[in-house]
């Protein structure tokens, strides 16, 4: 069997691992990717890799020798231009055609770029790839002024790394609070205070209108606000799923490549996994698209099993994490649609958690330096538990005895 994988990110790395761990597989695996790098972890790019605590070899999901020993055909630095589903071939940017029996699309996402005046100036950075972080880190120097556009995970993690490097950091968030898309107000308030205590200037309700400078950025213009002098800028305003290849091939896409709960597209010979997919989630009963390591890994396993014709349903509680300074935020579940939040612990102690309920059922937990609440949340969400809010807030009740 000839397996071809397009996109060399986390899902691709897991897919190869899962295929290779199956003792029945024979045939070839070809990995095609735009970037020159073997599959690597992206989460550290805005965390330990940006702050220099991790080197590039530690980012790889598997060492180079693994791919050699596994005889994976590596076609990195090549963009897949089209898929011919009838001939079952993939055409690369250099005209090469690669034949497949089974095709896996792990094309991931790309950053959303700003298209306001001055957006092409040098010194404006995005974080998605090793090269992005390498370029950004080269600009880090104590005393420099860095502005972050977008107060989400990436922006805040970059702000923390830059602050640790002795830079003067300003964060601009369009909404009325940071991380507003993913966490409750209590958590936003905590992280805003944390960053301010480290010297970061956090400004919310502010709209960036343009960048100014000769060749390199020197200032950022905002609506109804004076210009902000900046030596460099990091933009973290979300990502766009890479679905064009699938769409052109006639596969159904709807904010992601549409797959079923076996990571299978409507074409029986094509699977898809990771950030690029729109998939059903059995726990929440809806079609979702996730930007997370957990989904990349778990869905890639399901994709591998579909390729091997041993299908297993992918149904997992999503989880995420973020490290900022010495604070660890762990999130389990999806809070969208909640009608009640219950806070356990005290934010002023830098250890608390927020439980999100919908009709009494626990749907998500944000845990700040509270690994126990996070772990318990994972179990309870899977069980569709309805914990009693008065017991959640009562920290004299051990979390294990909550239900």
């Amino acid at each position: 069997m000839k397996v071809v994988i397009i996109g060399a990110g986390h899902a691709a790395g897991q897919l190869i691992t899962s295929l290779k761990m199956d003792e029945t597989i024979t045939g070839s695996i070809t990995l095609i990717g735009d970037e020159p790098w073997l599959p690597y972890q992206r989460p550290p790019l805005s965390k330990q890799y940006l702050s220099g605590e991790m080197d590039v070899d530690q980012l790889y999901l598997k060492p180079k020798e693994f791919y050699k020993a596994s005889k994976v055909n590596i076609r990195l630095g090549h963009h897949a231009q089209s898929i011919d589903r009838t001939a079952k071939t993939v055409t690369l940017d250099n005209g090469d055609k690669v034949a497949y029996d089974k095709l896996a699309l792990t094309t991931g996402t790309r950053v959303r770029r700003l298209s306001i005046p001055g957006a092409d100036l040098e010194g404006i950075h995005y974080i998605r790839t090793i090269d992005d972080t390498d370029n950004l880190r080269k600009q880090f120097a104590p005393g420099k002024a860095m502005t972050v556009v977008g107060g989400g995970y990436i922006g805040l993690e970059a702000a923390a790394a830059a602050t640790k490097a002795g830079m003067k950091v300003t964060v601009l968030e369009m909404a009325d609070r940071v991380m507003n898309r993913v966490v409750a107000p209590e958590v936003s308030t905590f992280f805003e205070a944390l960053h301010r205590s480290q010297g970061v200037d956090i400004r919310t309700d502010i709209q960036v209108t343009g960048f100014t400078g000769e060749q390199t950025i020197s200032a950022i213009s905002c609506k109804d606000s004076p210009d902000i002098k900046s030596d460099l800028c990091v933009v973290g305003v979300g990502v766009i799923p890479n679905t064009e290849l699938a769409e052109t091939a006639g596969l159904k896409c709807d904010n992601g490549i549409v797959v079923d709960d076996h990571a299978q597209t409507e074409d029986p010979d094509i699977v898809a996994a990771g950030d690029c997919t729109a998939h059903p989630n059995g726990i929440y009963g809806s079609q979702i698209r996730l930007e997370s390591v957990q989904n990349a890994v778990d869905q890639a396993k399901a994709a591998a099993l579909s390729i091997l014709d041993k299908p297993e349903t992918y149904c997992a509680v999503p989880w995420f994490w973020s490290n900022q300074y010495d604070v660890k935020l762990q999130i389990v579940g999806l809070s969208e649609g909640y009608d009640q939040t219950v806070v356990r612990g005290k934010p002023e102690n830098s250890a608390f958690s927020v439980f999100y309920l919908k009709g009494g059922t626990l749907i998500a937990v944000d845990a700040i330096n509270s690994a126990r609440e996070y772990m318990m949340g994972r179990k309870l969400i899977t069980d569709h538990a309805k914990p009693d809010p008065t017991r959640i807030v009562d920290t004299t009740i051990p979390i294990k005895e909550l239900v």
Partner: protein
Amino acid sequence: MAIVTYILHDGRSKDIEVKTGESVKDGAVNNLVPGILAECGGALACATCHVYVDEQWFDKLEPAGEVEMDMLDFAEDVRKNSRLSCQIDITEEMNGLVIHVPEEQY
């Protein structure tokens, strides 16, 4: 470097050379030892690299930190020699370390 023996739940075992500074998790993941998932890559965020350290070795290792203990408390079939393998960094003294891999991570 140290040779680490990973004993799988079905009794099979693998001897793996793990470099000093790498973790017990790295040795497993880089060499396709089944049963150690380590989904978060060692960020102490997922508790899917749970292992049992052989009784003879358990006390010789640096003890688990607070977050690791908290995460472990909720792992599947946790025992008194349970550890998260991403938190055990290999030293020269660990040559011969024996690790038992649990049947399931969750």
